[in-house]
């Protein structure tokens, strides 16, 4: 549930920024925005991305279809509606672990957008739609923080949230660096929008300057723990939540899980500053974070039953 909601939030921010770009940015920049989204989620759009053509109308038709696919199309598992729907199904299965307020926040947001069609918002205010939706998703997260009982369920909720954050952020940063390698120097606007996706635009200006330097942007988003969604902070929070969980059925497995999280933190803390092959580091982070998810599941949920429990074990 936490992972789906986190992903929905990311998608919402990406589409909010993209919907704004559609209003006044050059076509090439808009096309870059779509490519960044699709590469980050490791999908291809239905029918492929149309190149920037001479006719604006043509691009606008594409934008419509892509926005729809990423927002409302249920067949796309990464669309916002799919994420909300799957988060809701998860929440339904564990209703006795989530607070009533969390269920209400999630369910009412889902019901609100379930019957909306892109035609209802496209010509008037897609930007406001995404802003409102993002507020709904943020409300869910806030309500969870305010109301959820601080037992094991809470720590699993937080671990899911932070692992998703690490994976999505890392994918996005990796995409940005790869596209730069592919296309050459990217426009300043693409780095600025990246900062906005991480809520880090103001922090960058305060820390460095209003001049964008890609290396500094990456450093900030990867290692500055003051940025709430920086990679290092998300990894540290994951490690912290993992240490709050019990050992599970097998202390050796849970120990291995924590060590993996430690390696991930060390990679960012000690390797990142000294390495030039930053794409490779990000790729490694992504691999480790995926392993972390799998190990977590194997440690606490899908574990093999070893040995015969004694009948007096209660």
């Amino acid at each position, binding site marked *: 549930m936490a992972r789906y909601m986190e992903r929905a939030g990311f998608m919402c921010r990406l589409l909010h920024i993209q919907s704004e770009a559609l209003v006044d940015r050059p076509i090439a920049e808009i096309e870059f925005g779509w490519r960044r989204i699709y590469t980050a989620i490791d999908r291809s759009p239905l029918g492929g991305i149309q190149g920037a053509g001479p006719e604006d109308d043509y691009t606008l038709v594409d934008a419509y279809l892509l926005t729809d696919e990423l927002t409302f199309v249920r067949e796309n598992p990464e669309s916002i509606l799919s994420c909300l729907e799957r988060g*809701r*199904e998860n929440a*339904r*299965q564990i*209703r*006795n672990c989530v607070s009533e307020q969390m*269920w*209400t926040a999630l*369910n*009412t947001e889902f*019901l609100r957008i379930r019957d909306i069609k892109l035609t209802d918002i496209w010509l008037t205010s897609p930007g406001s739609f995404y802003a409102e939706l993002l507020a709904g998703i943020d409300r869910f997260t806030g309500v969870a923080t305010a109301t959820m009982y601080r037992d*094991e369920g809470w720590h*699993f909720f937080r671990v899911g949230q932070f692992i998703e954050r690490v994976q999505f952020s890392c994918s996005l940063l990796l995409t940005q660096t790869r596209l730069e390698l592919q296309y050459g120097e990217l426009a300043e606007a693409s780095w600025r929008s990246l900062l906005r996706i991480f809520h880090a635009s103001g922090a960058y200006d305060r820390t460095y300057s209003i001049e964008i330097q890609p290396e500094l942007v990456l450093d900030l988003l990867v290692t500055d723990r003051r940025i709430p969604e920086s990679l290092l902070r998300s990894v540290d929070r994951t490690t912290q939540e993992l240490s709050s*969980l*019990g*050992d*599970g*059925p097998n202390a050796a497995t849970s120990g291995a899980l924590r060590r993996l999280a430690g390696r991930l933190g060390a990679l960012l803390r000690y390797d990142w500053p000294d390495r030039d092959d930053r794409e490779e580091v990000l790729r490694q982070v992504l691999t480790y974070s995926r392993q972390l998810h799998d190990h977590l599941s194997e440690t*606490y*949920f899908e*574990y093999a*039953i070893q040995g*015969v*429990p004694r*009948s007096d*074990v*209660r």
Partner: protein
Amino acid sequence: MEFKDYEIESSFYDEMFEVDGSPREHCVELHSTLTDLTQLELSTMQERVTRSFYNEGITFIVYGDEAAGERIIPIDCVPRVLANAEWRHIESGLDQRLRALNLFLEDVYNEARIIADGVIPVDVIRGCPQYRIEMRGLSAPYGAWVAVCGTDLVRTNDGFRVLEDNLRVPSGVSYMIATRKAVKANLRNAYRRSQVLDVEHYGKLLLRTLRDIAPPGVSDPTIALLTPGVYNSAFYEHMFLASELDAELVEGRDLIVNDGYVYMRTTSGLRRVDVIYRRVDDDFIDPLVFRPDSYLGVPGLLHAYRLGNVTLANAPGTGVADDKSVYAYVPDIIRYYLSEEPILANVQTNLCRQPEGLEYTLDNLENLVVKQVGGSGGYGMLIGPHATPDERDAFAQEIRSAPDNYISQPVLDLSRAPCLIENEFEPRHVDLRPFILRGHETRIVPGGLCRIALPRGSLVVNSSQGGGAKDIWVLPT
């Protein structure tokens, strides 16, 4: 809003009005509140009640009609009111009935005295598909074969009658509570002034009942609720009850049997389970004993039950006591085990397995309701007066080819209650499903689920057939 076009017919008992159109004494308060509300206020109230079900997620998807999306059972915002004396009568009748049925189950799976004494023909039991030979020689803890029961009652001008006993996995209790919460919030003053008796403590009574029947020697039992999964139409109820019981909600794959004990997977390892409130049908609970293709159950569960290491509520095999053929014998069952006259009457039932019952049924099809003995949910039945001659002929063929499978009953003049239909009060036929718990003692919350046949003139109240539901208010005096 006035009840000016509300039709009262003397052939149907009206739950709110006397035959002369005046409100019944115990309905005066509610009647007055409803007439004081405007049409707009009532329709807004109805909308809020419906909305609350969507917001709570009390929805289900109909198998085979997934494209239609999530649905709710239509909830009518006008409650049905029962006077205290009426409720006491029902309550004592239900208690008597469940005590007798539990004694019957203990007997029929052990000594079978009731058969030996000629009260019930052996063929009736042998022919019942819900009779589980695997349960022979077993007993339920404290005789509570049926710990949770939902009995369907109807009222005619002659009083209350039992339509059927649901002794396997009766559902609807979460609707009872959700409906109560929604209606109470919208009719606050009438609710307070009427001092309606509470039903929301059902979860506590269920917990006490399940603790009562824990295996001997287990003082603090671990309870789990076994669900077929999130796609089951009653999943909301399973989740709701697990939450009320503070029990783990588990699927078959979460449980394992080892060394005759049942364990559930938890995030900290395996934990022993003592009581399972199972919401999975007999056929699916243990693939080693019942259907081998079941993925919903737990291999070895019945073995653990046989050893007395886990209690299943309800016990497997209870369906033999709510079979529609056995139903006809329940008054005799009560007399046999309790030496008492039944407090609640049965509906007159003709067994087609008996030559005279078959002949009567075939000669009077146009006046009878014919049901399959193993049918439920309003399926596999014929309502004679509403069927065409061709439908009756086709059904007669089916009855002749397998008479043991059918019973018939007269068409009942089910009582009617006012419902808000398209912003007007209209009478609709209703029934009543109270929920009865049996551990060391019988526990019943005062009320139940009132099911409504929503289409005008319809007598079918099943939710799968377009039925709805409404709250029941039992008054303290």
